């Protein structure tokens, strides 16, 4: 994504600056509080050596000192809390901005990808290979894991499944089940379903955590001829 790296940099910068500020505030508070307490204790231990006038001055100073510690403690507590809140709010805001950028670009890119795929159907020889080349290009922009498109024909429905990596068998069965169910629910009468699978990339996705999976389904054409399902499974890459 062209804006993504800038936002990532901004995000890192913002988090770094705010947390450095927080750490600095915590250190400064600790230093000054301890220093003032220490000074007061040292002066108090020498109180009996002072004259009456000096003792009165000292008591006034000590009182001011205590007020300063109280005020400082209150002020630091407030500013530390404000930085913490700011850190959290900025983090959320930047993440939302990030997502909004992705959504906008994806919307534009998706339209082009799907237009290319749909318009080429029935016109291009080796259409399945052509689709794979388009999906590979799109995968460079957006790391989705799975793409599917279905066409209604006179004889039935052709369902094409494209896996953007080496999926475990359980994931493939899940995809087939989900999509068959999705199509059946959209049709007024039962049709013969022909399913064709393609593995587009060699990325190892055997460690997909289904509990972390999010799917995004986009029905491009609401009519009865074409259905497109388009999944982004949010997975954390597991290193093994």
């Amino acid at each position, binding site marked *: 994504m062209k804006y993504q790296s800038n936002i990532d940099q901004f*995000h890192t910068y913002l*988090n770094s600056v705010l947390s450095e500020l*927080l750490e600095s505030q915590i250190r400064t508070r600790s230093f000054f509080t301890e220093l003032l307490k220490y000074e007061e204790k040292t002066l108090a231990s020498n109180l009996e050596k002072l004259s009456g006038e000096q003792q009165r001055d000292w008591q006034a100073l000590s009182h001011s000192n205590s007020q300063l510690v109280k005020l400082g403690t209150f002020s630091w507590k407030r500013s530390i809390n404000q930085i913490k809140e700011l850190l959290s709010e900025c983090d959320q805001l930047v993440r939302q901005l990030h997502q909004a950028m992705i959504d906008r670009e994806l919307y534009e890119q998706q339209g082009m990808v799907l237009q290319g795929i749909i318009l080429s159907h029935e016109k291009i020889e080796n259409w399945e290979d052509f689709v794979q080349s388009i999906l590979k290009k799109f995968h460079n922009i957006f790391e989705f894991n799975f793409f599917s498109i279905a066409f209604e024909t006179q004889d039935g429905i052709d369902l094409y499944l494209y896996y953007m990596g080496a999926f475990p068998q359980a994931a493939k069965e899940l995809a087939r089940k989900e999509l068959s169910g999705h199509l059946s629910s959209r049709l007024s009468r039962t049709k013969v379903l022909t399913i064709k699978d393609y593995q587009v990339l060699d990325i190892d996705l055997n460690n997909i955590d289904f509990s972390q999976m999010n799917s995004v389904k986009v029905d491009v054409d609401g009519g009865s001829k074409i259905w497109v399902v388009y999944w982004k499974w949010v997975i954390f890459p597991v290193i093994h």
Partner: protein
Amino acid sequence: MTNDKVLYSKDNHLFVLLNISEPGEENGIPSNQYLIINKGKGILLDPGGFGVMPQVLHHLMKYIAPEDVVGIVLSHQDPDIVGGLSSWMEMTEAKIYVSKIWLRFLPHYGIKNMQRFIGIDDQGSDLELNDVVLKLLPAHFLHSPGQLNVYDPLSKILFTGDIGAAEYQDADFSDIFVKDFPVHRSRIEYFHRRYMSSNRAIKYWLKIISGFDIDIIAPQHGYLYKGEAQSGLLSWLDTLECGSDLLDIK
């Protein structure tokens, strides 16, 4: 230096290498910070020295909010582990787990609220995090007299603190695992001979961890170990003369 890397992720349970600090921040020795998450709540392992917190926090917030950090484990008392703790205690409500022998020394770091600390007995302890019970295992005298390891039975990752720690100032950490243990050994040899107290302590620790199924050994400094590198490390340690073994009393 490196972005966060997920070492394990399954059924809402994650073990993440959060950050490898810049060497400049810790006098040339980068340190690793780890986060274990189960059902949205996290335990931070060895949060790092002063100045490291901003980058660790940045990576941490990709996974959970700071207020969801419910525990911080300190493998031992060194400044590259405890130096930034005041800030973490301000950012989170986490309880702090450390060997009980260090409790009375930690206030010297300027730490308040010692009631948030939980002193771990010498024999170790269990630490519950939602669906998982982590094992706080004793690794005393390696090198610290009160050193703790953390074993996660779901990911089968053993966090070893300074055991297996390597001194790298020039690595890029694009691959976080040891590739060739005989080559890597030169980066750990001096540290282990000089800092670890004795082979007796190592053998005692090896006996303790032999009861656990371990896929990855994750130290606080340098590359992680798995497969041949892991078995190479453990075999090497088994016969290593170090610390008081090397004192000539003749």
